[in-house]
């Protein structure tokens, strides 16, 4: 079932309140508002639009060697140095499946509540491109390794971080496939330079059903998937290094009518850009249809500098991939505790139940544990897990201080995190260790300093000069004066000064 963002799309469309878009937006919004009051002129005057967003995510499997060959998987390396004869598709070479990639796919499938197909098949998908030397990609189109799962993610409504709502997107399938090489386009010399280091690296393609309806939902779902993959270790899922690639399929339609024509948006390099690209494309399609135009079933690229999508040059017209079974690979058989054959070599067996028992705690479970153990709010648990290493830091501070976790969390999320963001530093690189922060918070709990003073001390500690909180307090005389007589003297001095003026 497709869910609309509670009609928010119609409201924002009328207000014209969404980011940069086609130039005519200003007048358009005014016209819509005028119509809103008056009698609707045309049929499509006030009908709400329901956007539909589906995602295809390619996650590079974290393994030492490639999916079908023994060459190394590494991000930056001299061009064409990590390429075997099979990767260059020289004649006479054959694919040999990597066991680690199968295990990674099974782990991901189990984490996303999929049913694992005990027998899955490999196919060839044919298309011509310079970075695909064989002319086909080995993938799993007919019977993939995992099907019918779900991914739950949370969104803050109304940008306030105070109310979070949980949504689910269905996972259609997860399949194993090969990556292609990289092409560098040299337009000045009218040529393309091809580097095959990435050709043949194992990918898990996660296909999601079109259950989402805006950029924010898509971004939240991808973020959650990224955290899951990183927790499992099946992929490092760093979008900047191309280990996680997302293509969005976007269409709009009126409720009650069949789905509209969809366009595919590619070249999205970060989660923020994903939200922008999806929102822009939805807006573009609505405006196009409102103006009586039609949407072409095409592939568009997202231009991050201009914040818009443009048609892609090479993907005109419908592609015919001529799928055929991969003749060099027999079916992939997976076993569980019941079907495990007695006399098989352990190295040749992938046992689904064995993998299931060894799955680490998924992010949702970790968050629930943090909330239960420390009494923090769910939104805080999200922030803790979103930042790499922050949850550990928080737990270390709590263990070394007398301050209650509910108060510690405020210091972590408001103060420490803002310092980290300001200086673009990760938790691991933080100049303030958990011990130092715990010492500082202890001073606060004992009421030796005020909370404003504590913030000053934290700023001093950030300079990383090796002083302890106590030393800084003494140096800057930030200590709270508890002695009543002294306080009386100070107050009297202030009053006297006032009288003299």
């Amino acid at each position: 079932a497709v869910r609309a963002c509670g009609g928010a799309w119609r409201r924002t469309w009328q207000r014209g309140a969404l980011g940069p878009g086609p130039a005519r937006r200003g007048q358009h919004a005014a016209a819509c508002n005028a119509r809103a009051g008056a009698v609707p002129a045309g049929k499509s005057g006030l009908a709400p639009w329901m956007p539909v967003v589906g995602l295809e995510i390619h996650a590079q499997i974290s393994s030492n060697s490639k999916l079908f060959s023994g060459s190394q998987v590494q991000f930056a390396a001299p061009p064409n140095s990590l390429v075997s004869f099979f990767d260059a598709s020289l004649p006479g070479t054959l694919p040999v499946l990597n066991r680690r990639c199968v295990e990674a796919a099974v782990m991901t499938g189990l984490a996303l509540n999929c049913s694992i197909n005990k027998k899955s098949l490999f196919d060839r998908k044919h298309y011509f491109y310079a970075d695909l030397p064989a002319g086909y990609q080995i993938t799993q189109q007919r019977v993939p390794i995992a099907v019918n799962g779900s991914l739950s993610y949370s969104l803050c409504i109304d940008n306030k971080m105070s109310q979070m709502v949980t949504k689910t997107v269905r996972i259609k399938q997860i399949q194993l496939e090969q990556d292609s090489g990289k092409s560098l386009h040299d337009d000045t010399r009218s040529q393309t330079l091809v580097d095959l280091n990435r050709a043949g690296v194992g990918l898990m393609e996660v296909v999601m059903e079109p259950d989402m309806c805006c950029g924010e939902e898509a971004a939240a779902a991808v973020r959650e998937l990224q955290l899951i993959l990183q927790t499992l270790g099946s992929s490092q899922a760093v979008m900047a290094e191309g280990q996680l690639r997302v293509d969005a399929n976007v269409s709009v339609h009126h409720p009650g009518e069949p789905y509209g024509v969809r366009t595919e948006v590619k070249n999205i390099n970060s989660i923020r850009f994903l939200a922008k690209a999806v929102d822009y494309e939805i807006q573009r399609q609505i405006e196009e249809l409102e103006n009586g135009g039609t949407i072409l079933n095409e592939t568009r690229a997202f231009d991050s500098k201009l914040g818009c999508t443009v048609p892609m040059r090479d993907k005109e017209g419908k592609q015919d991939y001529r799928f055929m079974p991969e003749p060099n690979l027999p079916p992939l058989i997976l076993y569980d505790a019941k079907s495990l054959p007695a006399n098989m070599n352990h190295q040749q067996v992938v046992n689904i139940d064995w993998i299931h028992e060894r799955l680490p705690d998924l992010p949702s479970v970790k968050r629930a544990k943090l909330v239960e153990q420390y009494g923090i709010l769910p939104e805080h648990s999200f922030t803790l897990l979103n930042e790499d290493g922050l949850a550990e830091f928080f737990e270390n501070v709590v263990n070394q201080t007398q301050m209650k976790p509910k108060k510690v969390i405020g210091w972590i999320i408001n103060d420490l995190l803002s310092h980290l963001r300001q200086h673009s530093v990760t938790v691991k690189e933080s100049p303030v260790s958990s011990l130092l922060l715990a010492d500082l918070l202890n001073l606060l709990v004992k009421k030796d300093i005020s909370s404003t003073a504590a913030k000053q001390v934290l700023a001093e500690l950030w300079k990383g000069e090796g002083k302890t909180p106590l030393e800084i307090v003494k140096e800057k005389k930030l200590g709270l004066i508890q002695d009543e007589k002294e306080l009386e003297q100070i107050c009297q001095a202030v009053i006297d000064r006032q009288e003299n003026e």
Partner: protein
Amino acid sequence: MRVLRLCRWLRALPVPPVRALRSAVPPRPAWQHGEPRPGAQRKVTAEVLGQLEHLALVDFRDAEGVERLQKAIWFADQLQEVNTDGVEPMDSVLEDRCLYLREDDVTEGNCTKELLKNAREKVEEYFVAPPGNIPLPKLEDQETFLQGS
């Protein structure tokens, strides 16, 4: 039996003075599958032909080429007459074999020089390819046979 008798008869023939090689392959097809199945499509449309040319990068060149393609399609179409209800498709004779799983070790690579030996052009250890996919001109702009059909 008929074949054996035929061979003996051939060998019994007097050998002509000019040593001509007698081929067992008849000079003309002895039989032809000339007609499409009843109910099947008779002709391949120009649009489909254009798409085939675009995808497979072939040029049908003239009417004979297209005719040959059509006859080939009718010939392959005979497969549709076989009843496959309830039969599992077999796509590989390997289906009963065990798929070998390799350990995740690095055993290959580092042969840049050897691989680049095959490349006609190279730039600093990259293979050189033409820019992107140069799309074939559309059917209207082509000067091929299909224009006239």
